[in-house]
């Protein structure tokens, strides 16, 4: 994979991945700010701010960013996580300059365009997003509750990126200005390009559009330490659903730590595909679960593996949890067979191959490493570390991580009639 990395004088870091497989270019811009940088009373602000960044800048009218990109056949969006906010578009490659103009305008010339009316509209849109994805969706409030019990209230993974209705209501135009001035700086961003361009020309265009944007003060560094609980944290909530669900969060080392990869493989061994441990035992053999799943998030401050099991009708969540724990115990005691590791590794390998296949997801993956690990070139050793992972190492991580005092458990129970 062709890779070139450099830094502009204003601190903007750039990753260029030239590939002429299709006449397309993906532009992918990460700002190193997410919900973990929010302050109490303003939860959800990083994500609300992401919406504001689509409502125009000095030379680009409200919704014109969308219209420009779509009018040339581009696809675009943005997203916010705990740790970062990304903005991206895939364009026909001869429109590269348009994309750079648009992204640089909202990095350098955003403030003159903001108005109270735009904030009020986007605030209401985000509240509808919260209703759609959290409040009105089956099990939609589980994640919020799971995070609430898994992290102490001072620790910013305590709340989800969507934030609370009250905090969304409280956000002001002053907050928008301050957030922009603190975080939306060339020296707090990484721009990754993947696709059909000539690197010298791309570099000149990036200098032209981003070079003039002044850097700002170094953003505050993230300091919070997760204070481990001494025992398992448990809770249950009710919801308008028919089947109970068990949610588990296990604390892991953060993304970038060597054991994170072992944790990822462990998630495959546990419940990716029907031949995985939990699927086979709970869904296929015992038929006490309707579905199970587990995954590891690419989080920067601390890691988490989430395991979810939905009970079949008339199955008690306690019985489901007990069966889950029996499987985990068996894995820790008996270890992992070489054949299971081969399956986990091959699935992970194909998974990454799919992510690298289209320019948009490739640029995003490169930016993950550029932003969290300091260099896009860290992707390669990361991928090869999957091939080197041994069953013993994964078992050892399972033993260290899948412990009661390192987890929280949430039950979502059907509301009873009446």
């Amino acid at each position, binding site marked *: 994979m062709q890779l070139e990395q450099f830094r502009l004088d204003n601190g903007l870091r750039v990753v260029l991945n030239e590939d002429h497989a299709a006449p397309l270019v993906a532009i992918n811009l990460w700002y190193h700010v997410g919900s973990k940088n929010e302050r109490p009373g303003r939860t959800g602000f990083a994500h609300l701010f992401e919406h504001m960044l689509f409502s125009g800048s000095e030379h680009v009218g409200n919704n014109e960013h969308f219209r420009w990109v779509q009018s040339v056949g581009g696809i675009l969006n943005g997203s916010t996580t705990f740790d970062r906010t990304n903005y991206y578009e895939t364009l026909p490659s001869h429109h590269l300059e348009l994309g750079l*103009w648009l992204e640089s305008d909202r990095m350098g010339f955003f403030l003159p365009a903001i108005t109270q009316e735009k904030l009020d509209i986007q605030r209401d849109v985000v509240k*509808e997003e919260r209703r759609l994805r959290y409040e009105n969706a089956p099990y939609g409030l589980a994640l919020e509750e799971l995070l609430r019990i898994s992290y102490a209230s001072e620790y910013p993974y305590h709340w989800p990126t969507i934030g609370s209705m009250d905090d969304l209501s409280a956000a002001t135009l002053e907050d928008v200005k301050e957030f922009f001035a603190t975080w939306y700086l060339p020296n707090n961003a990484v721009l990754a390009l993947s696709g059909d361009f000539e690197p010298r020309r791309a570099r000149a265009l990036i200098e032209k559009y981003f070079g003039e944007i002044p850097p700002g003060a170094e953003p505050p560094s993230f300091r919070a330490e997760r204070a481990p609980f001494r025992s398992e944290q448990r809770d249950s909530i009710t919801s308008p659903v028919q089947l109970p669900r068990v949610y588990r969060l296990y604390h892991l080392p953060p993304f970038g730590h060597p054991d994170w990869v072992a944790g990822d493989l462990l998630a495959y061994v546990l419940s990716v595909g029907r031949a995985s441990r939990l699927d086979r035992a709970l869904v296929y053999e015992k038929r006490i679960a309707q579905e199970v799943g587990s995954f590891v998030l690419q989080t920067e401050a601390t890691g988490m593996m989430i395991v979810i099991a939905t009970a079949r009708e008339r199955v008690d969540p306690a019985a489901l949890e007990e069966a889950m724990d029996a499987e985990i115990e068996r894995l820790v005691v008996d270890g992992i067979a070489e054949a299971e590791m081969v399956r986990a590794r091959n699935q992970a390998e194909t998974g990454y*191959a799919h992510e690298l296949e289209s320019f948009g997801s490739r640029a995003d993956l490169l930016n993950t490493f550029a932003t969290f690990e300091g260099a896009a070139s860290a992707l390669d050793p990361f991928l090869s570390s999957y091939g080197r992972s041994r069953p013993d190492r994964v078992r050892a991580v399972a033993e260290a991580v899948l412990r009661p005092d390192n987890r929280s458990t949430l039950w979502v129970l059907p509301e009873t009639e009446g």
Partner: protein
Amino acid sequence: MTAHAPHRETAPSPEPPRPYRFPPILREELPNGLRILMAVRREAPLMTVRLLVHSGADHDPVDAPGIAVFTAEMLEEGAGERGSMEIAEHVAELGASLYCGADWDGSVVSLDTLGRQLDPALGLAVDLVLRPAFPDHELERMRGERLTAIRQQKDDPAIVAGHLFNRFVFGRTPYGNPSMGTEESVSAFTRNDVASFYARHYAPNNTSILVTGDVDPQRAQERIARAFGGWERRDRAVHEPPRAGEREPARIFLVDRPSSVQSEIRIGHVGVPRSSEDYFPLLVMNSVLGGVFTSRLNLNLRERHAYTYGVRSSFSFRRFAGPFVVSTAVRNEVTPEAIREVLNELRAIREGELTEQELSVAKSYLEGVFPATVQTAHDLAGRLQEMDLYGLPHDYFDQYRERIAAVGAAEVRAVAQRVLDPDAVVIVVVGKARDVHDPLRALEHPVGLYDLEGNVLPR
């Protein structure tokens, strides 16, 4: 404002466009009638192998919905020498993802994996499609899982809205039923039902194999001929097309879900088949109306009124006329206003002016976005599937952009008038009746009250 560099003030001009061509499509047909379509793309190490049977859920008997999907899913529950769990292990070992399922127009066995796994992938595919065992004990297990899944769908207001919209628009026809089946139909399936759906429809002369991505076409073709050459041609089933019900004056079906904080809204009626001559003008019209972020519907309901996180309109272009539907979810208080705005937009696009800018944005979007939608082997397989199912000409994807470019404003208006019928829409609202029932009566369309199963509720 300070003056900025000239390059800042206006959008830059594009460079000359770089050439784009859809990869050449290689077609063969085996003596038994199995069609082979291949499109090579070797830049990434991935491949899709897909068996496509030209009979889908539209072949479900009206009183036994779900058999097409159930049959396809049973293929991976035991085939050839392998049992259900051995198949799952093998798939994971190949690093593959396997999909066995059916949509309205076809039944599919599809494997996405690394191109170097061609031989084992074809070996597995041939077992699944030619030598399924349909074991009784796995069928009972699947039935249990499926019944639970069907009941569980009632938890999700978006799924309920979609199903009931189909029921109220299409009535007692296959498209009016859920393709996953109902509790009643799935409870009654027997092994014989599965085996006979399989026997009627899974035949080489009713099937195509699509191979895309990182493969040597010569080698793939030899392997396919060897693996599938012995599959015996069968008489093909004659299919009675499902008929949609007659359109009726607009009415509102309010489905009560007391816990809802948003109304899930579906508004629409029967659309047109994929073979419609209006296909390209309709794509352009729908893009202006509700197909993209900057569409009229989204700018109105989201960006002007902030009623919703998003709204879209879409046509389901199928072998027979599928639905045209506008979908959104809005907070309870603005339910009638949101419906009124949707109806206003449907009227406006039939009766009002289409600006030059709207037309050119919609067209240049559809023309320009095509290459971005076929970046992966999986995407390419989807396009070959479309070509094969609907009998599109071999140069279809090369002509695609010209066909979009040829659409004019008058044509867009004409198809909007011909196809859209805001006076005959079905309006489904899944929401909290206590809050939204009375306000909905202000819309001057009859309002009926229903439960989550679609049964009439006493008022």
